[in-house]
């Protein structure tokens, strides 16, 4: 029986492990979790199974489990104890901005990624992709050897082969001063890379450096140039902001600094400090930011400039010093938009000096410029916003850059094309046809984790070392530098951009570590001293490396042209807006099963992207939910499934990027639909399309509303939401905080028998603050990583068998066109009178003396009765052996402190009992009490907004006890008298008294 559970293995070092033949074989094994075919009768294997069945039933007996080996180190590194977790600080860069991380490592293998509390862009939180990086590290589909492609033939090569080619070639390039050399790099904020670039330019003056990032913030930079004539970036500070206006902005999710911004945003949403901020959001497609807004306006991206100018006009009317040119609205908008603009302007004006306007990367430069202008007028600088010099300010925009490269390739001026990371062949603007142009270069080299679409166009694919395997450094949005240190010896070898560039520039080939070590990062102009270096590695941040704020002021002549361009009409036809996908971002994470299975915060769809359409627009276009549609822009056209979502602006279709990959790996290939073909260089953010329903329908695997809900279901859901998600308006709450408790009054139902006494020294409990939760899903991935939760695949999700222990329920309220969104994370409520327990015939789920509802996997026989009797339906059942085909390398991602569940076993949230126990044991060993906050479950640990609080209810002064007594606290389904240990804090909204819900 125990054989079904994952075995903990010890080994000396990874290369030793990697040498065992079964390791190689296992590594090459198929990716697990995608169990579709298990239920599929067709396969021969299945048929044989059925035949052998009767025998199989006999063979199911357990005897002594297989002999286990203990392989101690031959000589043990100092301070390394087997099976003891160690945390290291490192950093993950995404699109040129970094989040500092703490990585937990067992026996030299990283198993869990968390945010680095000392890092300004993390503050202890980590985004879903960052946490899922550990799975990316162990992805067996990562390329292991250089690949050479020539005349349609492809050949695996050794590193020696590559060097044998590269060294002379690079020497040749240096000899020719880099003539015909083009380097295409993904966005990078690495000071070391910058340093090496300088060296490169010296060595190869004729080489050209290009940058491409499909989701760039170029417009923001452009806007700054427009407004100030200087390349600055804005670093918002929401902690002081009372009124925030987001123009298609992505403050809380997409923004490079989102984790910090979310923390600051939520800090003033709880209504405790006697203060609460107010967020106005105008956006074409509902986003996490829009969902958190007090006033959300669904508006086509093309109309947002006009809205911005209306707001400017409104401000002027309220006596804000708005430049002359901007005092009149550019053009008329519909009533809702006008009301929204008026209300926003009014509040902004009132909160002068404590207000902020932000524009999103989808918006054109002029909107950003306007935002800068208005922020200055509102006195935001130094208060809610600070400007810093963009570290790479003088670069041209990514679109220009890649267009330029395409031009030179077409002209045949590129001899050697070196592509550092990225996947340009897949995500570059479709009109450039870059994929085909790459071939024009005589030699093309692509450095990437996977042998992806771009690699397949190149003569050479060079495996890239994962950031958890390699040295590097990078800057956070505010400029803070973190050193990226490896947690593990590179599993499959691999190079880093730093090494390649160094090799190219002919610098004495050093280890990446030395390259990083030699870079001055703390602004002192000289490399860190030994102490500073060690400190930087330990803390994960280089002290004093943050970019200093710069004093900027708007150029008088800026206002005119801005105003002129704001008026440009949205034009006719349906507008297709390109979105960063919450899971796979621009497609780079497509082969990460955790992210693929992570439901979209708004649509709750997994394993797919879809054309997001509002109900009204869908009706107009005659498109059903789940129907395939053809989108045509000029001669470009794609087919994609439609997904009807409330809150998408009229005449808008949202197209998440990053799906329909063809060379992502076994997990990501063919998942979803590739929308890049519609994306062209002159309109990288939104295009006009013709929509045609194709009649065919397509299964979208959603974790909520598993099937289209019928009328009575809808009606009932509407009736219940008020009960499930308690909301209050800030104004009333402030007047009378107890109103919530009073109106909801949770009567204590009479107990049939004396309440059971819990003997434990501690009584664990949790609260989840719905005012703070922004529905970002970070908790779900944290939980998945911490608790070895299996990935089940699209078919299983579609059947309703997803395994997430904590799910973020999303509810819409109000009209389908302008719905209010509420999120409610639901995990096991650890009821004191847990209904699941009394029905289990084998006592596999019982209560602990500390009030935990324990689920004992090895006792579970799988009657599933507990789940039937659970009012919250938070229990998850292993319908199959979801780890059956997990390869050895993926097993390295398992958390050894958590049992890997067998098939036929129920599982659920445990409040991270393994963390509780380890802290308890440690404390007891040292004979000291457990401090409040010393125990943090994975979900609470990573929550960017600290919405989840865990602690000891027996200690009346603990944070969780106080929150349990909080006037906003309520229990879900309290009337059932199950006495949940997890209480929710009612959601506060702060609508402006002026405008009615826009």
């Amino acid at each position, binding site marked *: *029986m125990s054989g079904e559970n994952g075995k903990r293995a010890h080994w000396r070092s990874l290369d030793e492990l990697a040498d065992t033949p079964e390791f190689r074989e296992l590594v090459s094994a198929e990716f697990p979790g995608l169990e579709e075919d*298990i*239920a599929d*009768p067709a396969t021969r294997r*299945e048929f044989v*199974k*059925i*035949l*052998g*069945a*009767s025998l*199989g*039933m006999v063979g*199911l007996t*357990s005897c002594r489990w297989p002999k286990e080996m203990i392989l101690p180190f031959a000589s043990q590194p100092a301070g390394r104890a087997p099976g003891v977790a160690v945390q290291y600080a490192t950093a993950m860069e995404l699109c040129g901005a970094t989040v500092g991380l703490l990585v937990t490592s067992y026996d030299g293998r990283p198993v869990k990624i968390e945010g680095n509390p000392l890092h300004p862009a993390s503050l202890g939180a980590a985004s879903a992709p960052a946490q899922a990086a550990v799975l990316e590290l162990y992805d067996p589909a990562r390329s292991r050897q250089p690949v050479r492609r020539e005349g349609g033939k492809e050949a695996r090569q050794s590193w020696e082969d590559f060097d044998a080619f590269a060294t002379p070639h690079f020497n040749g390039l240096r000899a020719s001063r880099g003539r015909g050399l083009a380097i295409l790099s993904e966005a990078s904020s690495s000071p070391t890379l910058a340093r090496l670039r300088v060296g490169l330019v010296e060595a190869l003056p004729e080489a050209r450096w290009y940058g491409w990032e499909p989701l760039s913030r170029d417009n923001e930079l452009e806007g700054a140039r427009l407004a100030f004539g200087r390349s600055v970036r804005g670093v918002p500070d929401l902690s002081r902001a009372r009124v925030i206006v987001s123009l298609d902005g992505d403050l809380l999710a997409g923004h490079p600094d989102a984790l910090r911004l979310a923390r600051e945003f939520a800090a003033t949403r709880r209504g405790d400090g006697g203060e609460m901020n107010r967020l106005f959001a105008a956006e074409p497609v509902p986003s996490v930011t829009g969902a958190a807004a007090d006033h959300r306006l669904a508006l086509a991206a093309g109309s947002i400039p006009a809205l911005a100018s209306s707001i400017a006009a409104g401000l002027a009317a309220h006596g804000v010093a708005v430049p002359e040119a901007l005092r009149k609205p550019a053009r008329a908008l519909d009533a809702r938009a006008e009301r929204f603009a008026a209300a926003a302007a009014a509040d902004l004006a009132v909160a002068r000096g404590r207000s902020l306007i932000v524009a999103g990367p989808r918006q054109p430069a002029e909107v950003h410029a306007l935002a800068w202008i208005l922020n200055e007028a509102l006195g935001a600088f130094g208060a809610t916003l600070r400007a810093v010099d963009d570290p790479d300010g003088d670069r041209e925009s990514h679109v220009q850059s890649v267009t330029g490269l395409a031009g030179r390739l077409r002209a045949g001026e590129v001899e050697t094309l070196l592509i550092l990371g990225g996947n340009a062949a897949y995500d570059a603007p479709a009109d450039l046809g870059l994929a085909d142009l790459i071939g024009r270069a005589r030699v093309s080299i692509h450095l990437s984790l996977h042998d992806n679409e771009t690699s397949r166009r190149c003569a050479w694919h060079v495996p890239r070392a994962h950031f958890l395997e390699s040295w590097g450094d990078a800057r956070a949005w505010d400029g803070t530098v973190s050193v990226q240190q490896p947690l593990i010896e590179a599993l499959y070898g691999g190079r880093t951009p730093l090494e390649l560039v160094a090799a190219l520039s002919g610098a004495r080939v050093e280890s990446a570590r030395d390259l990083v070590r030699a870079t001055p990062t703390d602004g002192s102009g000289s490399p860190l001293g030994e102490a500073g270096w060690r400190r930087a590695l330990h803390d994960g941040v280089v002290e004093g490396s943050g970019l200093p704020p710069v004093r900027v002021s708007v150029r008088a002549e800026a206002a005119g042209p801005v105003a002129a361009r704001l008026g440009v009409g949205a034009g006719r036809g349906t507008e297709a807006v390109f979105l960063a996908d919450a899971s796979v971002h621009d497609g780079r994470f497509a082969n990460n099963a955790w992210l693929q299975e992570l439901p979209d915060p708004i649509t709750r769809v997994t394993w797919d992207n879809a054309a997001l359409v509002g109900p009204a627009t869908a009706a107009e276009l005659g498109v059903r939910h789940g129907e395939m549609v053809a989108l045509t822009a000029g001669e470009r056209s794609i087919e994609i499934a439609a997904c009807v979502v409330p809150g998408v602006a009229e005449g808008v279709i949202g197209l998440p990027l990053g799906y329909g990959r063809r060379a992502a790996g076994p997990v990501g290939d063919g998942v979803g639909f590739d929308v890049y073909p519609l994306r062209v260089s002159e309109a990288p953010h939104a295009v006009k399309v013709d929509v045609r329903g194709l009649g065919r329908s397509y299964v979208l695997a959603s974790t909520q*509303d*598993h*099937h289209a809900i*019928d009328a*009575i*279901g809808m009606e*009932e*859901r509407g*009736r*219940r*939401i008020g009960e*499930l998600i308690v909301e209050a308006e800030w104004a009333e709450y402030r007047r009378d905080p107890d109103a919530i408790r009073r109106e909801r009054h949770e009567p204590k139902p009479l107990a049939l028998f004396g309440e059971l006494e819990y003997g434990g020294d501690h009584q664990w409990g949790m609260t989840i603050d719905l005012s703070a939760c922004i529905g970002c899903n970070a908790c779900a991935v944290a939980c998945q990583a911490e608790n070895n939760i299996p990935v089940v695949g699209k078919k299983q999700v579609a*059947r*309703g*068998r997803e395994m997430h222990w904590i799910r973020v*329920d999303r*509810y819409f309220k109000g009209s389908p066109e302008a719905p209010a969104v509420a999120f*409610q994370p*639901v995990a096991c409520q650890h009821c004191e009178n847990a209904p699941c327990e*009394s*029905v*289990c*015939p084998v*006592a596999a789920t019982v209560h602990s003396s500390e009030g935990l509802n324990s689920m004992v996997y090895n*006792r*579970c*026989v*799988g*009657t*599933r*009765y507990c789940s*039937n*009797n659970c*009012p*919250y*339906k938070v229990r*998850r*059942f*292993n319908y*199959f052996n979801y780890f059956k085909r997990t390869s050895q390398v993926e097993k390295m991602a398992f958390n050894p402190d958590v049992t890997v569940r*067998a*098939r*036929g*076993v129920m599982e659920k949230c445990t409040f991270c009992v393994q963390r509780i126990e380890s802290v308890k044991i440690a404390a007891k060993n040292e004979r000291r009490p457990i401090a409040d906050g010393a125990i943090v479950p994975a979900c609470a640990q990573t929550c960017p907004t600290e919405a989840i609080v865990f602690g000891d209810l027996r200690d009346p002064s603990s944070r969780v006890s106080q929150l349990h007594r909080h006037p906003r606290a309520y229990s879900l*389904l309290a009337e059932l008298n199950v006495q949940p240990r997890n209480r929710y804090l009612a959601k506060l909204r702060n609508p402006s008294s002026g405008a009615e819900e826009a």
Partner: protein
Amino acid sequence: MATVPAVVDNSLEDPRRRAPLVLGENDFTTVTEKVCAIAERPRPPREWYIAFAISASLAAVLLAMLGHLFLTGIGVWGLNMPVAWGFDITNFVFWVGIGHAGTLISAILFLFRQKWRTAINRFAESMTIFAVICAGLFPAVHVGRPWLAYWLFPLPNQMQMWPNFRSPLLWDVFAVSTYFTVSLLFWYVGMIPDLATLRDRATTRIRSVVYGILSLGWRGSGRHWHRYERAYLLLAALATPLVLSVHSVVSFDFAVSQLPGWHTTIFPPYFVAGAIFGGFAMVLTLLIPIRSYLDLGELVTTRHLENMAKIVLATGMMVGYAYGMEFFIAWYSGNPYESFAFVNRALGPYAWAYWTMIFCNVIAPQLLWWRRARTTPWMLWGVAVLVNVGMWFERFVIIVTSLSRDYLPSSWGYFKPTWVDLLTLAGSFGLFFMLFLLFLRFVPMFAIAEVKSVMPAGGLEIGPHHGHGQYWGEIPHQHDRQFGEEGA
């Protein structure tokens, strides 16, 4: 010995003129001959073989499906997270229900001295045994790790753990296994004299050995009869509360839970009524074709059919009442979750199942108010079959619709059966019919001794009576005789 011509219609209930239960030119000899002949045929007719082949192969399919299930996991069924029970428990409850008619006919009717039971009780009891076998199968295989199902029994083990006796599932374990054991004893004890008859009529060595062993050496001794009757009476007295308890306990699986649509106090009586309803329907479904095929009209008379029809009608009304009452209570309780559960049943995604159930269980039986329907075998059979379908859907509706939409709309789901679900259901029928055909082939399908004892010649002039087909204080045989003479 007085006999009655077959033409007499004995289905009239006239207290003054008690009709005989066996028609035609029959005495002990001929009755014995008629019944035994069926089991003694050297080889059954082709039809039997065809039927057996079909049901046996279905049973084989069941085996294959279970193998597939054991090797692959519960996921081969259509279950998902809100709906963690589907066909498995539906089939379980359905089959247990079927079982009940057997015990009811043999025990309760016995205690109520309904002598007409004698013609059908063997039949019904056998049906019980086979149905309970099918039923018992499902709880055993529905668990995620069947090889550990023995943990449901209180066996000492190295974990020093015991099952949780607060769980209704554990009550099921005890109820069903007790029910099976007692029914089996009841069935076998009732069969001993008839097995002896077969033994004494045996013409081949193998038959006399087998029946000789099975009949335990029965020789009709007066002293044996004396104890035997007492024992049978006691068993009946024990089986009666048992049969009521078993389906009540099964209903606790639902009634004791939290789930809207399950959590109702009406379940125990409602389930018992439903069980009797379905059980009798199944008896009729099986009996009517066999009766006509083997031409047993003289033993299973129209009166028998009509009596059963009446019970079906009565229990059908009870079930219908329960359906209505559920709705009333759901509304009257003012509990929004409860009311929605029922609105959802009738109008939600599973409305089709609900209305199938209503049509089969409430509408169809209304035909039986009409005497023609009760006394015309094919009509009665039609109704019975519908009721069987309806009762399966009743369980499906209760289990699946309630689960598919409970408290949090976010976790609502929809259950779609897979091919494995369907084949498993079909397979369980295969197993049931296979066993039943074997029974027809090798065991006297009527309780010969009992039938005889309700024949005129079985009566006697003097003495009080106890049990076994005869009745205290009542003197039926005189009536029979008069009636017989008039009829002649």
